[in-house]
């Protein structure tokens, strides 16, 4: 049977064309499929653009190379932040939302024509903002703090992009309603869709906050409003700036569960516990935005400590639950697949040659160990004072957004290409290596930026040599070494990123068609079993015999405690109390 055969069904008076996936048996709405493809392609284009600017930034901060002049450095930094922190991830998240609703719930997508309106708005907005930046008069960086003023089209572009993304979020909610009305699933929605719902809810809050603050800022840039309060701007803007990164967290956790389910047939250890962990995200994750405002005058310690400590620790608890349950789900599935010897045979014999699995598991480990632990350190009010606005901050969020989210999105792409684009991945040997190259590069970037930040190196600083400054300052040689290593590992990450883009584009353009006969092998190496319906149904793994997971969790806690107290030690040396 050719995979592309489609049937038309009329549901509720609305006609929709579906094809049936021979691997999973899921009905795939062709309108949803087209939108997933469009958003995925757009996301990869902007990843390539944003990644290139990121490489230029890293090579400039490497003092020996120092490739860009000051004005171009801030232009590149603005474009890098805009394209990778907002445009790449939200385009991809739109694809994830359509996939997790229409595809996983076996139903038609709500208002697909509106989906194209959303897509056009997002493309127009992203292009407009990028053009404004490239013209050179909007080098205000991604945060665009007032009173720095960008070209009006910079703000307008982001507003249009945000409105398009909001439409996509409401289409996701509409699709949930359709699936429930048409009874395309039984009981509760599957966990992966619930994770996407969590991402959608956080996205609605975050994107709406961004649109709300950027609308008056746009009018201010046009001259219709005389003044925007700087701290008020920061407060509301960070609801978007950090909130969108929390969308990433929810989305990539959902992808961890999805990849484990598709490749290994892994079910969560407990649906209830995992869904409760997502509820903790819905309630508290967005409050983490406050850690950007921990040194602002005018905001009380009560506000700062509640938002960054008491509340956010509950969201951190959610992340730790996911970290354990995804690992545990993989172990449970592997043990069920026959890998039962010792504590770690399940991990040694995992499909490490499958780029989807390798990317997913590396994302999980690096997000937890590098991004999660450093996030708690930054969110602790007392410790934050040592690291605030140092290059430690981008070190932390490269561990979360690049090692965590981007690597997880890359992993999912290796499944989306055969399942949705119906193309076999080209250059499979390079594809196997790609997640490892990218992960090594990103781990280095994150660690060395955090190392330089611990030595006090400021973020967003063109020249730490202070060549043209009236007053000089010398950083320790180790800080220069850290920035040089950051540059070297940025090159390695870029090689991984370029490989990913080439493989994805090459597959879309020249990949061999996937057929019913080769669909399973097209998903890459995996245990010798058929893909189960684990990703689209409710249910638990049914075992708690997970010695390997318990050992890994113990190692994580030990690292967490040690690193946390090492930072308190640093603080006591900087800020002696006697």
């Amino acid at each position: 049977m050719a995979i592309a055969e489609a049937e038309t069904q009329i549901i509720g008076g609305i006609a929709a064309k579906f094809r049936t996936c021979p691997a999973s048996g899921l009905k795939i709405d062709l309108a949803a499929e087209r939108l997933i493809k469009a958003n995925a392609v757009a996301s990869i284009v902007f990843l390539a653009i944003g990644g290139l600017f990121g490489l230029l930034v890293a090579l400039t901060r490497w003092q020996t190379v120092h490739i860009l002049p000051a004005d171009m450095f801030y232009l590149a930094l603005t474009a890098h932040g805009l394209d990778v922190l907002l445009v790449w991830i939200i385009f991809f998240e739109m694809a994830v939302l359509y996939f997790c609703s229409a595809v996983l719930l076996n139903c038609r997508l709500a208002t697909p024509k509106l989906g194209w309106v959303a897509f056009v708005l997002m493309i127009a907005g992203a292009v407009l903002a990028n053009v404004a930046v490239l013209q050179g008069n909007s080098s205000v960086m991604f945060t665009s703090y007032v009173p720095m003023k960008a070209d009006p089209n910079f703000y307008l572009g982001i507003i249009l992009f945000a409105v398009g993304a909001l439409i996509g979020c409401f289409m996701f909610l509409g699709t949930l309603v359709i699936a429930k009305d048409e009874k395309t699933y039984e009981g509760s929605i599957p966990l992966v869709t619930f994770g996407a719902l969590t991402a959608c809810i956080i996205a609605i809050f975050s994107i709406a906050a961004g649109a709300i603050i950027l609308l008056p800022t746009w009018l201010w840039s046009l001259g219709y409003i005389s003044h925007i309060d700087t701290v008020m701007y920061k407060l509301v803007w960070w609801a978007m700036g950090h909130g969108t990164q929390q969308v990433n967290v929810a989305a990539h956790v959902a992808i961890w569960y999805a990849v484990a389910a598709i490749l290994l047939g892994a079910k969560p250890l407990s649906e209830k516990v995992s869904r409760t962990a997502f509820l903790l995200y819905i309630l508290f994750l967005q409050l983490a935005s406050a850690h950007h405002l921990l040194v602002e005058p005018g905001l009380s310690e009560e506000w700062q400590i509640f938002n960054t400590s008491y509340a956010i620790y509950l969201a951190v608890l959610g992340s730790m639950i996911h970290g354990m349950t995804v690992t545990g789900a993989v172990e449970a599935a592997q043990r069920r697949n026959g890998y039962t010897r010792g504590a770690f045979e399940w991990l040694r014999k995992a499909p490490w040659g499958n780029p989807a699995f390798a990317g997913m598991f590396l994302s999980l480990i690096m997000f937890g160990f590098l991004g999660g632990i450093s996030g708690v350190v930054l969110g602790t009010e007392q410790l934050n004072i040592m690291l605030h606005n140092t290059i430690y901050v981008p070190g932390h969020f490269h561990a979360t957004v690049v090692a965590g989210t981007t690597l997880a999105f890359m992993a999912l792409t290796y499944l989306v290409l055969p399942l949705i684009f119906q193309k076999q991945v080209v250059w499979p040997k390079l594809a196997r290596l790609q997640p490892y190259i990218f992960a090594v590069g990103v781990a280095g970037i994150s660690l060395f930026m955090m190392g330089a930040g611990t030595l006090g190196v400021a973020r967003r600083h063109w020249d730490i040599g202070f060549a043209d400054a009236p007053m000089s300052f010398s950083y320790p040689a180790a800080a220069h070494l850290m920035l040089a290593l950051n540059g070297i590992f940025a090159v390695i990450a870029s090689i991984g990123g370029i490989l990913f883009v080439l493989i994805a584009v090459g597959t879309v353009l020249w990949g061999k068609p996937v057929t019913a006969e080769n669909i399973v092998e097209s998903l890459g190496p995996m245990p010798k079993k058929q893909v189960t319906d684990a990703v689209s149904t409710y249910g638990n793994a049914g075992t708690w015999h997970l010695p390997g997971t318990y050992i890994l969790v113990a190692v994580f806690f030990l690292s967490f405690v040690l690193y946390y107290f090492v930072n308190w030690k640093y603080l006591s040396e900087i800020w002696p109390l006697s």
Partner: protein
Amino acid sequence: MTDATEQADDVPTPERSLRIPVMQRVLDNPFLLLFIGVTVPTVFYILWGLIELTQIPIAN
């Protein structure tokens, strides 16, 4: 409460066996979750923060 009433309470009825726990009903309602997910950060992060900022005295 009498023993007879207690015994009657223990007898499973079709309604009781089909009763969905409150927490599950919350988690199964995307629009309630949307309301909670927008309200909590709006109140604790944005509104509380804005209230504090409006109380900063204006410099002379």
